[in-house]
């Protein structure tokens, strides 16, 4: 038996129940997120826990855990700072941001500062290219950074000063985020409501609004043709 809390055992049960009878292995990805909620990474104990829950071997669990980049093999910091260095973000300055952070923090990709505050990583496309260069903290977006402001951001994080993501909920720790990734609701009051849409997201639809454009002829009472009419088509 591993040293996980009774709460984690209860949550594991809840996760497994989401999937059809006999198909419980589907719960493995959320369970791996769940063990990161307690340990901050997928530890050998975490692998054993998942194996025990699903009746798998540790080798089967390990094979899955090592495939996905969000499962960390070593203890992580309280905040994971990810910098996109894929082509578009790279040409827009993402690589410079990563280099500046790496110099300032004294850590490279997938490494954590000695005080355990920040893990730095370069990430591949994070699906917000209209905001490039893209930086996230614990996977929530912090927009409009350059090397200097990115360094200030990490100083604020390290000093415990409040940081508000541009389009996400108020920050939580990486361990707390792992619980949401395991499929549990964000219980913090108002967190789901946080995060207004940014300008790039709304540009097209605002232009249409400004010019009074909407597709003509939309009538929500348009009947659905009933060729089949309940019979076999």
């Amino acid at each position, binding site marked *: 038996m591993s040293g996980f809390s009774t709460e984690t055992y209860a949550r594991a049960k809840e996760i497994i129940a989401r999937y059809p009878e006999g198909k419980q292995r589907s719960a493995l990805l959320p369970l791996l997120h769940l063990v990161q909620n307690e340990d901050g990474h997928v530890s050998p104990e975490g692998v054993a826990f998942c194996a025990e829950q699903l009746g798998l071997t540790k080798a089967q669990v390990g094979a899955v855990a090592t495939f996905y980049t969000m499962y960390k093999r070593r203890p992580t910091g309280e905040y994971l700072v990810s910098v996109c260095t894929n082509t578009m973000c790279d040409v827009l300055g993402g690589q410079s941001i990563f280099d500046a952070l790496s110099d300032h923090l004294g850590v490279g990709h997938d490494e954590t500062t000695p005080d355990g505050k920040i893990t730095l990583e370069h990430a591949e*496309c994070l699906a917000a*290219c209209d905001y490039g260069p893209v930086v996230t903290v614990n996977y929530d977006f912090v927009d409009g950074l350059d090397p200097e402001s990115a360094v200030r951001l990490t100083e604020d994080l390290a000093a415990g000063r409040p940081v508000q993501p541009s389009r996400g909920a108020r920050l939580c720790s990486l361990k707390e985020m792992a619980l949401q990734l395991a*499929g549990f*609701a964000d219980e913090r009051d108002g967190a789901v*409501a946080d995060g207004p849409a940014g300008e790039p*997201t709304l540009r097209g639809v605002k232009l249409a609004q400004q010019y009074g454009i909407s597709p003509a002829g939309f009538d*929500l009472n348009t009947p659905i043709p009933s060729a089949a009419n309940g019979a076999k088509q």
Partner: protein
Amino acid sequence: MSVFEKLTPVLTKRWLSPDAWRLDVYEQLDGYAALRKALQVHPDDLIALVKDSGLRGRGGAGFPTGLKWGFIPQNDGKPHYLVINADEGEPGTCKDLPLMTYDPHALVEGAIIASYAIRANRAFIYIRGEAVHAARRLRHAVQEAYKAGYLGQNILGSGFDLDLVVHSGAGAYICGEETALLDSLEGMRGQPRLRPPFPATHGLYACPTVVNNVGTIASVPYIVLGGAAWWKTMGTEKSSGPMIYSLSGRIQQPGQYECSLGITLRELIELAGGMTPGHNLRFWTPGGSSTPLLTADHLDVPLDFDSVAAAGSILGTTATQIFSDQDCPVYATYRWLEFYHHESCGKCTPCREGNYWMVRVYRRILSGQGSHEDLDTLLDTADNILGRSFCGLGDGATSSVTSSLQYFKQDYLDYIEGRKAPKLSEKALAGAH
């Protein structure tokens, strides 16, 4: 006709209402009206409606959605599944995350209608792990939908039951490939399956399964409400409807622009306020980094499925990444290859090994130590990857290689023949030979 008239705010319209992610606001904005309407008709009528609309998949391949739904065998005694591919990660693509964040109920409503049509009682939304805020909103929307009786047993008294689970991935681009996604959802490494059999007969848990993109499913409620004829007033004959174009790069106003399918890049750049001052268009992707590069010669190609194919590329996810004369196509391709090399799942040798070696050849060229033979090596390697793996990841990796060599060979020669300063240092070259 002004370029603004190409805008077709349909799926993006509710993004203007800051609280549309809440059920009460969504319901005030026609929310769940389509579900009520759909549950009144026979499921086959819905499949026929979607077929009539000409809706094609928004995830990149453009497969006709109604046809896909029609492939699901009925009365076969097996459970059916709807799996929504929300693993958005194709470089340049950023249309599904905002949709799920600002209008999550649209996806939930579409999922219920689609499940009813294909007779599925379980549906899954496989959302990219990193998309945490979209997942927050989506999970909240699903909870609200259960409470309101839109999900669960006997939905709105129709006798139809549906359970919907939001399942977060864990960081693997390959899981956006539909069969790798299914393996991942079954709790395995995300590696693609050999087809046939196709998911329509042997998908999730080897049962009949429809896998559709977020934008595809979110389109369904509008087709149910407005009808197929209305849907076809937008787009072209073979690419109907509106499409969210994601514009990024060297333009004044990057962002999401929902337009009639078939708009051109020239028009999109005009909508986006023109190029960034001091930048001239040099190369661009019509639909993410897996689609062959196009150039300034292609400004007037209609961006619909067939016209882009005729121009030698792929419409893909309509992720138009726009690069200028200040950007290097050789470096851009190198950086994409680093991505494909990192994301190759390793199952098929041509993709796993080919990308590994192409990255090294690019490093050699970009550090000023390339040879003319390297260009032949690249083309030969690309030729040996293309069509020789289980899925399209390897194919996608070759797109920018072959297209950049086609259009920008001189840039390669400039590095090789020493006219251009090396872009990578000796440090980056470690292990390149």
